[in-house]
């Protein structure tokens, strides 16, 4: 696959890996946060950490848009889905995320009709095909996805569709990064910036990280070489004493973002005063809501949801895990109250979250896995 396979080349990875190792100051431990869930996925899927020296640690950030949706919003979605004649749509990723009373799958088992769609536009098609149903698109995602929702609202408005609305759960990444940066016990050395968010917002919004917090950030692509190169670029900045916003992903990310996309968002949505993030609590101005002008497409205005919050236990320590202060197993509720089947915090929702990964495979050290695969490779090559 063009623009994919070239960036998965093991040969080049080995070279980068050597460069990175050569940049490590002896005795120093590095922690970089990959903000984005997509990066976490790439790192996991390709086993990228095998290319990093033990002294470089990657911290998985809050950038998985389904993982951060709090239980109360899942419950509100189910509340809407239970209203008469409602057909709800959402992305496949949302289906298994538990609310206070189970997930969308559980809710469907009790009679709601929540369907997966590949694109928000598919919800419009469903709405046209089912004029007697009220189709509600449960929208999630960061700035990457918000333009698609915005375009969908604009299209619905242009068509005058009357049985379509959006339950808007779009979140913005900058306030989440800021919340982490504001923590007094922060132990991060730099950020791998979210490449696809940046196609929309560009690279400028990260400048405060370098100017106000003096941490380097490299906006990175999603192939493993992209990430490895970004780490190399971060290490280079650190070793050279620089602290800049750099764009590793220049083949896709324009420095100024996508103005058409930003316009579509600004036309249809506005910032909320605050929004709850699973495991992180309330973060001000960290999410979007539908503007008054498009009120007729706003499920929050159409359906009178209870809007009840579901309390996370006080012991929940996602914030600390995200900041790299605590190991997953050090969280008080890890493995007892908080498990992959019943995740309380954001790090437990996706199997790639730090806590879920540790829960499932904590007993198998990376070293043990590497030895096993090395043995197998050696022996298999004999075959």
């Amino acid at each position, binding site marked *: *696959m*063009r*623009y*994919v396979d*070239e960036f998965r*080349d093991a*040969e*080049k990875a*080995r*070279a*980068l890996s*050597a*460069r990175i190792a050569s940049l490590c100051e002896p005795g120093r431990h590095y922690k970089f946060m990959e*903000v*984005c*869930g*997509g*990066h976490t996925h790439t790192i996991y899927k390709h086993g990228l950490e095998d290319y990093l020296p033990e002294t470089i640690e990657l911290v998985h950030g809050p*950038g*998985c*848009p389904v993982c951060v949706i709090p239980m109360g919003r899942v419950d509100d979605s189910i509340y809407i889905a239970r209203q008469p004649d409602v057909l709800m749509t959402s*992305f496949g990723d949302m289906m298994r995320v538990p609310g206070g009373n189970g997930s969308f799958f559980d809710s469907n088992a009790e009679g709601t009709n929540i369907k997966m769609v*590949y*694109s*928000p*536009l*598919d919800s419009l098609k469903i709405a046209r095909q089912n004029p007697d149903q009220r189709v509600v698109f449960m929208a999630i*995602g*960061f700035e*990457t*996805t918000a*333009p*698609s929702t915005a*375009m969908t609202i604009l299209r619905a408005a242009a068509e005058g569709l009357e049985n379509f609305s959006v339950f808007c759960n779009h979140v913005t*990444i900058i306030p989440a990064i800021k919340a982490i940066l504001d923590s007094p016990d922060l132990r991060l050395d730099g950020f791998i910036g*979210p*490449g*696809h*968010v940046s*196609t*929309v917002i560009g690279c400028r919004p990260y400048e405060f990280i370098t100017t106000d917090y003096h941490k380097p950030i490299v906006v990175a692509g*999603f192939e493993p*070489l992209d990430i490895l*190169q970004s780490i190399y670029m971060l290490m280079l900045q650190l070793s050279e004493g620089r602290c800049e916003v750099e764009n*590793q992903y*220049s*083949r*896709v*990310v*324009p420095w100024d973002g*996508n*103005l*058409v*996309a930003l316009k*579509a968002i600004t036309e249809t949505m506005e910032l909320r005063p605050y929004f709850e993030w699973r495991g992180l609590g309330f973060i001000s101005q960290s999410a979007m809501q539908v503007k008054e002008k498009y009120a007729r497409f706003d499920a929050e205005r159409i359906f009178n949801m209870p809007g009840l919050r579901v309390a996370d236990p006080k012991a929940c320590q996602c914030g600390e895990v995200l900041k790299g202060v605590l190991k997953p197993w050090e969280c008080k509720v890890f493995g007892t109250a908080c498990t992959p089947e019943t995740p309380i915090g954001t790090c437990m929702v996706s199997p790639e979250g730090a806590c879920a990964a540790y829960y499932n495979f904590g007993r198998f050290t990376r070293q043990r896995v590497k030895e096993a695969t090395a043995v197998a490779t050696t022996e298999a090559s004999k075959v």
Partner: protein
Amino acid sequence: MCLGIPGEIIEILHDKPDLAMVDVSGVRRAINIGLLEDDPPVPGDWILIHVGFALSKIDEGEAKAALEFLEGIGQAYADEIAALLESSID
């Protein structure tokens, strides 16, 4: 965040000009290109697809530059390894 996949524009659907048929490794889907209206893509262009929308055009020059950089590093690494091996043979 958010899954984005490169695809090649095969055809602009003239009855629906904000839609383009895009090929991803032999499978095809109509993709909304409305977000690229400032610089509309043409057949042969590569775009980044996210939830049915084209988020940006892929810049071939930048991609080439990136790969050249990586190859440069790779070459340097290979040279070093070779030098190392040579030195140990010596």
